[in-house]
């Protein structure tokens, strides 16, 4: 009766039993889905990191360069390859249209990776593991990460960042 007036007393009309059951089931499902998130946030092993800092893009770039100079072990197509111990903070920088540096990690160890962008928004996406974060200029996102597989993984950019967006591919090597 969507375009005609309902009964004046529609608020007092009884709700059918079947719809009441559906309502109850729906409310329980909603509460359940909410609680799963809360429980996983406390006890789960995969949660979006909560540590982040405001940082000037130029400062971030400077720290990335210092980090690269200190731990550089090689180069691939002009991109530095860096291997640092897991007790120091690692850096990963997105810029049009490159991820720098190539990080070398060890399987089963936990690393702190400081992720940011120095120009526009980029999308940090490790493939084929498929873990995705937003790299926002001016914000440093600290990812505490434990690789559980070894091999070479790609970092693709999945936030549109300009004409070379699809060419923006980096790498993480897990030994």
């Amino acid at each position, binding site marked *: 009766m969507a375009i005609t007036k309902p009964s004046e007393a529609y608020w007092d009309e009884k709700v*059918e039993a079947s719809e009441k059951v559906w309502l109850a089931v729906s409310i329980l499902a909603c509460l359940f889905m909410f609680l799963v998130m809360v429980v996983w946030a406390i006890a789960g092993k995969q949660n979006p990191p909560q540590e982040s800092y405001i940082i000037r893009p130029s400062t971030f770039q400077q720290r990335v360069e210092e980090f690269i100079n200190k731990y550089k072990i090689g180069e691939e197509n002009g991109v530095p390859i860096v291997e640092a111990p897991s007790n120091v903070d690692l850096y990963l920088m997105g810029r049009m249209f490159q991820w720098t540096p190539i990080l070398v990690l060890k399987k089963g160890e936990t690393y702190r990776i400081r992720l940011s962008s120095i120009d526009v928004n980029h999308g940090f996406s490790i493939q084929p593991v498929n873990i995705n974060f937003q790299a926002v200029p001016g914000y440093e996102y600290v990812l505490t990460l434990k690789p559980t597989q070894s091999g070479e993984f790609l970092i693709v950019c999945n936030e549109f960042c300009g004409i070379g967006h699809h060419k923006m591919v980096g790498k993480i090597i897990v030994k």
Partner: protein
Amino acid sequence: MQEVRVCPVTGLKVQRHAENLIKLNAVMAVVSLLIGGIGAILLALTRWEAIHLLPSDLYYRFLTIHGMNMLVFWIVFFECAGLVFASTIVLNSRQVAPKLGYFAFLLMLLGWLFVNYIVFTGKFTESAVMFTAYVPLRAHPLFYLGYILFAVGALIFCILFFLNVYNARREKAFEGPIPLFTYGIAAAAVIAVFTLIHGAFAFVPVFLWSLDIVKEINPAVYRLIFWGFGHPAQQINLTAMVSVWYLLSYFTVGGITPSEKVSRTAFLLYVLFINAGSAHHLLVDPAFGAPWKIFNTSYVLYLAVLASLIHCFAIPASVEIGQRSRGFNNGLFTWLIRAPWGNPAFAAFFISLVLFGFIGGTSGVIMGVEQINMKLHNTLAVPGHFHGTVAAGTSLAFMGLTYYVVPLIFRREWLSKFFAVIQPYLFGLGLAIMAISMNTLGRMGVPRRTWETSILNIPHKELLEMALGIGAIIAFTGLIIFVLHTVLTLLFGKKLSGNDKPTFPSISEPAPQRTSTPGTVTLAFIFFFYLIIMFAINWYILSKSWEIR
């Protein structure tokens, strides 16, 4: 005195200014749909990398055009037509301040022109910024100005809607509780008001920034405020679409909601909680903490999802009630099997309902889970999700309504019954194939908004891309049939007059009383188990991933 005619089918009074505003908005909606649709097929045939149709710069440019015309212009123009319809004709009342209405339409038209002009002709770096235009990507000032003008025009239509309802009461054109359709549209209008205000807060500073008046915009804050516009804008669509579903269940089978009280409460839940959905886009952003993310992404304890679950029961139930009182009362599903599937308004409505629930709604609830979002953020699953909601859901529902709008408002008889009947099936089937392929590709890591992904080694990628492309071709065929058929009918269709019956029958008598709805209960629980299974699968996939905190 304003000119008034009486609709021969519904007996409603149709006043000239209201009719004109509906027509203007409807025409622009269809034009935008055509532009967006051409963009759609070019994009899909580029993402099908065996074809890879467009070069990269054109791909990103058309992506912006497609997003703006589909997500903003087509739908908002149509909704403005809906706002006028629900507050004048349905309430048996007149359009207040018609000149302001025309002015608002003019603003929207200008905004539409500016955006389309600059995205088609501007420099690449100033035009391909996408619907989201994330700062510090910087578009031409006309782009932002167009966005703002369009939003202001739409805001005026919302205000006129409330004035119309107030006026209908004051002039006693309508007394007592307002009809459910108008109630739902009112909920959409309230959501639209705060959505458009967010839009102003996002775009006015950015517009000034593009003119070098403002020095700097914080990219993270922009994302927060933009999504206060961007996501609720789609919730206006959702709310308007649900209202249209109720309307179509009435027009097509005389359906009535099982409980006015419950259905209206659900709309109220949308108004109160749905804005929190903007957090969905910020779940893996650096600038926000877990409590904020979890509270908001759950739409405040999933109270807005509860509303959708209520409609997911009430709408098929209203069809079942209508059908059972029309005599299709045998067994569990006779009402559904013997439904008027040959009436494109019904087919569009019911296909839209099913696809929205199984593809759009379910994927949305899942990707809105804070943790699972790490596996889906910015992947092709995101457009996969919203092609299930706004395209297969809202657009198809609005197409269904058009099958009544053309004969009832424009007074033209549809040129071809055949093309009208097959159109919703083509559009729905195509989008279903496309959205499922996109969701699957995205779940395996294929990024959205990316011209080339050949570097990714993903099982069955070529096959899924082909399905995406073929689905898009089928959906595009349905879309083009819809646009051409509508335009040609408006130009050349037989004029209806007096008591001529429209092409597709509509029911003007509601079901005499409510019946029980065992078929709907069964369907609702099938959907429920499907949702639980999908939810569980996604948590399982997440639990196998690298550890991260």
